[in-house]
């Protein structure tokens, strides 16, 4: 056993209603303390897979909007509470689930 040193890493997990209609997770980690980068990376991971060309969640459009300095405030604002907006989505997800018995749980365990 030996120790070569310590490395600081930051990681972010974000969630939103995905294309499947269920809550999905996005994840990103970077070396060092890097809030804007991990948050924009995690949102990219959440949105980009399978995004159609020309949609706002497609990689090109997305990075165009999250990379500039002006967007750092927008990225970090995801650390603010989002109780109200999340509660509203959750209500729709639960309502849809109650209407279709046997549907998968919208909130991943």
């Amino acid at each position, binding site marked *: 056993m030996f120790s070569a040193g310590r490395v600081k890493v930051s990681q972010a997990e974000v969630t939103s*209603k995905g294309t499947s*209609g269920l809550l999905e997770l996005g994840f990103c980690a970077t070396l060092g303390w890097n809030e804007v980068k991990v948050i924009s990376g995690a949102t990219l991971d959440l949105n980009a897979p399978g995004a159609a060309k020309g949609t*706002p969640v497609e990689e090109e459009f997305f990075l165009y909007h999250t990379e500039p300095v002006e967007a750092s*405030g927008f990225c970090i*604002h995801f650390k603010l509470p989002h*109780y*109200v907006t999340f*509660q509203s*989505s959750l209500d729709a997800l*639960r309502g849809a689930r109650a209407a279709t018995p046997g549907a998968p749980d919208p909130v991943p365990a």
Partner: protein
Amino acid sequence: MTLASLTRPWEAMSYGFLDASAKRELRRKMLKAIAVPGCQMPYASREVPMARGWGTGGLQVTLTLLKPSSVVKVIDQGADDSVNAASIRSFLAKVSGARETWDTLAATLIQSRHRIPEERLRADQVLVLQVPNPEPLRPVEPNMSHARQMHADADYGRLWLILYEEIVRAGRIMQGAAYPALVNGRHVMTPSPIPRWDVPKLHMARHLTFLSAGREKRLFAVPPFTRVEPLVFSDLPYRVEDHAGLTCHRSGMKSFFMNEIPQADGGSAHELSDSHLGIKAIRQAEGGRAEIGPTWYRDGRMR
């Protein structure tokens, strides 16, 4: 005539932080927004001492409306005491000399992040909502020029189509907050991400509402007594969040919009989202003095 007679003495900062020309432009755009309800007006969003995405759009409108006699309330997701709300409120008071309040009834100017207070707003109050994304057509048309043309043509077919697709897929409309609504029978707006619970409060309201997006540099307005109709199909009525049966575990208030707080046993407790309404209810219960105004909802139903 000397140059000095044409200018004012030097001041470290303009009243209300923004310089006169910025306020002039904002006022013109705000009047224009009132004249065409729900239509997005572009403006030159100035720099304010806050990062874009934290309510800079709302802040600029509020700074323009402030006067020394204003009483200002700031809401962040329903709460007056969150860090963002507290710092915006103290900034507003510092640059204008306006009085700060938490009480909806006492306020003349209310800047809010995503909630409309549960107490009915009056004609002498102005509500300023912070908006992250002002474009209701973005999910169907990412190209801004095309979206503008669609607004001009009142071409909202594709917006109806995604709502219909949601009904086909999930059995109901899955839109959470920011439910698209038709303003004055002409322009569809995205009412910032206020929950569906709050959208009917804008319909034929007595107060003036501004919605301003600083990052996207656009603002729009809902003037008093203007129709605001959520997009719904005639056979599927508009549904607000299912909160009519909930009780706040701290104040005992029933049938208002609640925050859900997960508990250790896997269940959840609920707490009033409009935090100061809860505080007033608790004060009343303890025998203190606190006036609760008439509310938009009674027993979970819009009045």
